[in-house]
């Protein structure tokens, strides 16, 4: 019974160590990842739901395709991937360390035949006399050699960058470090959103899962502003934020300018400028109405969505307002209101009245001329909020990965042996990477060896 059990465990172990599995996993991850770039992820847009057949919708949801990067099977793939990586390293690392720490000091006859790079020179004197010259030679040209005497021959061994064989393991380890960082972030961090009306403060934010999270301090939006390029494209969204502890501004965190690409961090929580708008709720808008014949003007206040009816039976409904119309109407700037006006017994008409262009408002040929004078509404700033205590682990992993890739690809373990026997010295060499370049170095070395007087 014992042997079969062992061989079962053994074959599981072999399975998780196998590089076939690695390639299978890499290709599977690549192929399955495509799904999530084609199908919408997270909240499904209603247009999508309307257009897809119900059976498909059901199958896809069952398979987790609409949140595939968090689906059980994708996460399982990642776990198997990590397991593969760990097992493979456990299996191979001891061999590599042994290889580094216990280099092959003595070259047997059969081993000598396997080298493509070799050079022989004649030695006239006794081997022991030539030995010191060659030790000096290797010390100067490669590295200080280890000398071993073996059945009447001297074996000199010199190596460089043996540790570069560990580069691949640094890369593999770095992947695990990044995973650990990501897990820490998902366990102990959160992503959220908060909007703050100018002049007001918040002490909690809403996380993506809808939960309210208390910050432990307050954030006040002192002011919000938008700048535009002459073309009407937005140039800068700017919030001035103040952090308050116990109602008092924290020194150094007063009126901090936050723009896109320049967030504000306090106590591990970071606030990112992400959106803005006008806090319309309860705010008043001021409009004017004039008779075209000049018989009296009137100013009135109204909320968005409300209507007023004038003496002559005309009604005006305020549909929406904007404090800067340039993004929508590049030829105009400043505030404007979209209104729906219904003259008595006529059908409603919708148009825009500007604050800064009374002459445009007057160009409409109707009996009444409308104007917009602005609002007491304030702006709000929309901020993404994130806390991610794992992010430094992720950056550590990334640094290790780049370092490891550099070592793995561009550093090479170079080894040179010289076997000094009666009558001749033979030099052998190999390198773990970039053999072509090493071959040239070896030729160089061989030329210098020929000039040694021994």
């Amino acid at each position, binding site marked *: 019974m014992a042997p079969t059990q062992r061989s079962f465990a053994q074959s599981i172990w072999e399975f998780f160590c196998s*590089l*076939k599995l*690695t*390639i299978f996993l*890499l*290709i599977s*991850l*690549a192929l399955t*990842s*495509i799904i*999530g*770039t*084609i199908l919408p*992820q997270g909240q499904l847009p209603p247009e999508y739901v309307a257009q897809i057949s119900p059976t498909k919708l059901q199958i896809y949801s069952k398979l987790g395709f609409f949140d595939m*990067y968090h689906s059980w099977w994708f996460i399982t793939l990642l776990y198997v991937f990590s397991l593969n990586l760990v097992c493979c390293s456990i299996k191979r690392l001891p061999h590599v360390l042994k290889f580094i720490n216990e280099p092959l000091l003595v070259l047997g006859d059969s081993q000598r035949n396997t080298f493509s790079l070799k050079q022989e020179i004649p030695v006239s004197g006794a081997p022991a006399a030539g030995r010191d010259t060659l030790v000096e030679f290797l010390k100067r040209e490669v590295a200080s050699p280890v000398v071993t005497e073996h059945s009447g021959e001297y074996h000199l061994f010199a190596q460089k960058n043996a540790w570069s064989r560990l580069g691949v393991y640094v890369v593999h380890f770095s992947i695990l470090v990044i995973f650990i960082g*990501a897990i820490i972030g998902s366990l102990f961090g959160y*992503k959220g959103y908060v909007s703050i009306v100018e002049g007001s403060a918040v002490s909690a934010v809403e996380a993506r899962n809808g939960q309210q999270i208390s910050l432990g301090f307050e954030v006040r939006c002192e002011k919000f502003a938008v700048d535009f*390029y002459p*073309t009407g*494209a*937005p*140039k*800068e*969204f700017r919030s001035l934020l103040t952090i308050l502890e116990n109602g008092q501004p924290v020194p150094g965190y007063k009126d901090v300018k936050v*723009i*896109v*690409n320049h*967030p504000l961090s306090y106590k591990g929580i*970071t606030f*990112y*400028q*992400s959106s803005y708008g006008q806090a319309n709720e309860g705010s008043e808008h001021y409009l004017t109405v004039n008779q075209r014949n000049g018989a009296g003007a009137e100013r009135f206040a109204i909320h968005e969505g409300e209507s007023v009816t004038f003496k002559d039976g005309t009604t005006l409904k305020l549909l929406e307002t904007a404090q800067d119309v340039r993004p929508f109407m590049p030829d105009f700037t400043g505030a404007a209101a979209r209104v729906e006006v219904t003259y008595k017994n006529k059908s409603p008409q919708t148009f825009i009245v500007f604050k800064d262009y009374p002459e445009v408002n007057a160009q409409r040929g109707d009996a009444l001329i409308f104007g917009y004078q602005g609002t007491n509404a304030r702006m709000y700033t929309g901020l*993404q*909020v*994130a806390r*991610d205590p794992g*992010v430094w682990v*992720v*950056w550590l992993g*990334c640094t290790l*990965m*780049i370092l490891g*890739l*550099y070592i793995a*690809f*561009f550093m090479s373990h170079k080894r040179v042996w010289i076997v000094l026997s009666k009558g001749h010295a033979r030099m052998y060499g190999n390198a773990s990477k970039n053999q*072509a370049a090493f071959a040239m170095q070896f030729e160089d070395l061989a030329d210098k060896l020929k000039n040694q007087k021994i």
Partner: protein
Amino acid sequence: MTSSMLFNATTLAYMASMVVFFGFLASRNQKVGLAGSLLAYAGLSVQTIAIGLRWKESYDMGVGHAPLSNLYESVVFFSWTIILIYMFIDLKYKYRIVGAFVVPFALLGMAWAQLGLASNIEPLVPALQSNWLLYHVITCFLGYAAFAVACGVSIMYLIKAAHEENSSSSVSAGGLMSLFPPTRVLDDLNYRAIMIGFPLLTLGIITGAAWANYAWGTYWSWDPKETWSLIVWFVYAAFLHARFTRGWVGKRAAWLSIIGFAATIFCYLGVNLFLSGLHSYGGGK
């Protein structure tokens, strides 16, 4: 002198270089090959000046930023990096003929940019106003260019290998094929180009993640562009492992490299044309 005139000159230089390289393939005259390389380098120099000039022009317009902010500028930069990597291979490994299979990619890019894309200098939207843009785009594109070179070399490999199979029974034809580096060398060049491209792509993904984290507080959000860059990364990781441990060299390696570059091009262009996301290149958004 405007940058757009210089870009036109660049396109012409690459076109001339390609034609001369084809002449090189036909004539096997080393002097013709040298002319092909020199034309490509002339194009590269003019293009370098043009990119610098466009950078300056953006400052003159008062919207100063590095010329890496829209599809036009990125395609131009992509062409530039391809020729740069080609120059490296020509000078270091002395395989001039690779130009015949690499310069057409650069020409294609320039021609498309000059004829098909809007070349206005636009002010940067707030999301792109960051130095990370520079680091991110440069590393990604150097990586892409290395993969383009690997793809060109792989195509050469497949042509040469097919030719050798066919002609092994008959008399060795020599001719055009003798101009190609030996298959062994092409295979090695493929691997080397990917050894350069893979760390650069890795850096590109990392700088992108660092930027996203700095600007939005998430280093990874499975945006289609991010995901596709990861897919490309997986493909080349598979290439490295298959080669190293399963002896996938030669033909299979060449095919994997071509598939990898197809995925790269999809990541660069396809994602913007067919999918939606946070990245700004390509009309979408």
